[in-house]
């Protein structure tokens, strides 16, 4: 059941992505992208990544859509026509990279494989030590806020800097 659900969500994800890319009206493209974000959030929830699901639902499906709509209101809803020669060049590049990526998918370890390279490096150390060393029952929080406290601090600084940059760049002309 769970795998069937996941497969359905992934198919929906591809449909939404195609709709976003194919739509001639940029308003429809933005809304399709919002729907893509929502299906993505459901996909994260379906594989048990609640933290990412939260963020994807609010940022991917909500805030990004609203920001893009606001930006769209200032420009035009029509996309500019594609440069004729460039189209085939882009298609060729995408085809080559796409085939390579598809080939690499086969080489990936199965999802949730405890022997996967990502799961044998520092993860066992964090998972076994989290409660004892940090007193934190949630291993995700223990990694984010304690083991990787520096990373989270710098991420917060990055978010603040990005916000400050947007705020200054989009300054009202009368100020």
């Amino acid at each position, binding site marked *: 059941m769970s795998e069937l659900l996941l497969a359905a969500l992934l198919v929906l994800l591809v449909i939404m992505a195609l709709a976003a890319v194919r739509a001639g009206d940029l308003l429809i493209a933005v809304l399709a992208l919002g729907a893509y974000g929502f299906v993505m959030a459901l996909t994260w929830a379906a594989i048990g990544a609640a933290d990412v699901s939260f963020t994807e639902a609010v940022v991917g499906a909500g805030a990004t859509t609203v920001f893009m709509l606001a*930006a769209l209101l200032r420009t035009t809803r029509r996309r500019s026509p594609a440069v004729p020669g460039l189209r085939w060049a882009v298609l060729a590049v995408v085809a080559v990279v796409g085939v390579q990526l598809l080939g690499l998918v086969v080489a990936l370890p199965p999802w949730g494989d405890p022997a996967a390279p990502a799961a044998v490096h520092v993860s066992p150390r964090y998972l076994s030590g989290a409660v004892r060393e940090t007193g934190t029952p949630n291993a995700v929080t223990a990694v984010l806020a304690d083991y990787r406290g520096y990373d989270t601090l710098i991420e917060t600084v990055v978010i603040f800097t990005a*916000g400050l940059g947007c705020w200054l760049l*989009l300054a009202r002309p009368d100020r």
Partner: protein
Amino acid sequence: MIERHGSPVVTTFVRVTVPLAQIFAVYVLVHGHGSPGGGFQAGVILAGSYILRALGLGRERLAGAVDEPRWVALAAAGVLLYLVTGLLGLSRGAFLDYGALPGDEVHARWLGILLIEIGVTLAVAATLVVIFCRLAGREPEP
């Protein structure tokens, strides 16, 4: 540009949903220690509630509530709270060593993580709301 929507369905939906979302944001923040969620998630949910209110009740409602420079300062205060919490750890020899905070080891670490999560929440929520204000608040150029 974003004007108040006259429909009572939209208005009522926003009036009911926004306080619930804000309470949920606080829940996600303070329970991040033991359940999924935490500072970043709480911040985006909080910002989402403000954006939803502006969309449903009109941006004048948001402009009245959001003094942009003050919110930028709020975001900076969040980053500062994180930094100061980290510096407190230096008294025990290591930056971000929450064990240096008052209380026994488990409570000190809980307090430290809560403090930095509050900092992250402030930074993320204020940043998103300020970007939204700047994008949606201005009239489009003729």
